[in-house]
């Protein structure tokens, strides 16, 4: 192993330009993938925030007793799809309207807005079908006059989310494949540059494992360095965008580590495959 590390470092030292080129290529491939990942991540967060606002409102008829509504609130809270239920009295509704629509303050008078029961759904239950199903169950309460949940809006939102997921996944896969191909060919170039070493090692009776080891170490190191560089690049881009364009979220530390590991893995596998071609069995 000692020799493997030494030979790997020797390869860096002997062909610094080629090594640098491989690392930069790996870095930029992962950078492109990382940028795409950031965009996707932020888009998903934004959509999730909008989704959280999916809400069903049941307007309560005037003169309904407090017992009836609180019993209903308890029932509805027990629905499996429901995250939270809140009773908003007519007084609270008026206060909220005044607060949210300050400029029309004097338009609102007591009694103009009905009391309501506001239902929010759990994550994963905000699709049009679930929303409709919960809304239908609210209709069973006699004292609920009217139910609103922005049916069209929910459907549109759901469609956008599905499209974003599908496009995100397929673009992600394409980006990943491109990155793997580019990184693979860079590493193959590095291995080809050392085909003479491989030939001599075979000739003097080095085992395949022994021949592979330095290349695997080299590929792994390049992958890690490229991954780290990509992380730095995405971070600066993220900072720049955050400062001048729009607030955004960055990768969590788990995802960042995963990105570097992905680089290392691609480096390792790319080297293994490239060297393997030289080690055809006889």
């Amino acid at each position, binding site marked *: 192993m000692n020799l493997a590390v030494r030979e790997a470092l020797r390869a860096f030292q002997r062909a610094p330009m080629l090594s640098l080129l491989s690392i930069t290529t790996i870095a930029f491939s992962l950078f492109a993938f990382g940028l795409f990942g950031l965009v996707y991540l932020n888009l998903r967060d934004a959509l999730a925030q909008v989704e959280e606002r999916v809400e069903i409102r049941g307007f309560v008829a005037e003169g309904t007793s407090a017992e009836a509504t609180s019993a209903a609130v308890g029932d509805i809270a027990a629905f499996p799809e429901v995250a939270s239920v809140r009773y908003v009295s007519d007084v609270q509704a008026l206060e909220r309207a005044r607060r949210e629509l300050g400029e029309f303050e004097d338009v609102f008078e007591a009694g103009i807005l009905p009391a309501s029961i506001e239902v929010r759904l759990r994550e994963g239950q905000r699709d049009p079908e679930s929303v409709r199903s919960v809304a239908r169950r609210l209709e069973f309460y006699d004292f609920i006059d009217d139910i609103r949940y922005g049916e069209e809006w929910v459907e549109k939102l759901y469609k956008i989310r599905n499209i974003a997921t599908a496009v995100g996944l397929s673009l992600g896969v394409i980006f990943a494949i491109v990155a793997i191909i580019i990184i693979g060919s860079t590493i193959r170039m590095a291995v080809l540059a050392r085909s003479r070493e491989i030939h001599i090692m075979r000739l003097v009776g080095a*085992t395949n494992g022994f021949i592979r080891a330095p290349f695997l170490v080299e590929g792994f190191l390049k992958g890690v360095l490229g991954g780290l560089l990509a992380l730095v690049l995405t971070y600066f881009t993220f900072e720049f965008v955050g400062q001048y364009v729009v607030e955004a979220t960055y990768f969590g530390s788990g995802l960042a580590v995963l990105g570097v590991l992905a680089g290392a893995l691609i480096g390792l596998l790319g080297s293994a495959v490239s060297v393997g071609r030289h080690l055809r069995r006889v």
Partner: protein
Amino acid sequence: MIRFTHVSKLYPKGGPALDDVSFHVNRGEFVFLTGPSGAGKSTILKLVYVDQRPSQGEVRIAGQSSVTLTGSAVPKLRRRLGVVFQDFRLLEDRTAEQNVAFALEVIGTPQDAIGPKVARVLTQVGLAGKATALPHELSGGEQQRVAIARALVNDPLVLLADEPTGNLDDRATRGIFQLLRDINATGTAVLMATHDLATVRANPYRTLEMNRGKLVYDSASEHPAAADEFDAPVPDASETPQ
């Protein structure tokens, strides 16, 4: 020690490279392999160092058969052979001694054993004073000596030389050939492919002549057959204490 029995080699593209070739080489023997380009000389050497396998027939090397030899056993067999080429095949960024040491390092020789072995073999090929020279600082003849040192450093049973003097001038050729004779005198068999007929004719060694994949002449068959010791397993030097 090396025995070819009805060996044929077909390449997927092109005709037969070897066609029903049989011969054997004894321990310590010096054998010329001659014939025009494309006659099959290099193919014979490749079959010996198991770069290729025969399409038909059997090649036996040091008691191992090409029929039963597994891929994982090939490296071990190669450690008992030394190979040199016309184009030397040295690593350009390493000194003469590093090139030789490389052959020991990659088979896992303990670090403290490498230095003395390298020094001994460089002395043997007459390059003790140029151990730290890079290949481009050496003449062609000297580079071939480094390659021979690398091939010798594992004490091979046989040295396979594929046109070792093909790139050298007359003077260097004579020097390299004398070195091969000296190596042979210490008991190492030498199988040398060459089309340098002058050298072949000037020396009394056994000659195998190839033409279009066939063995057309074996000077040994004019003499009484030598005691055939090829099939006795040769003790593995790397396993016996020295």
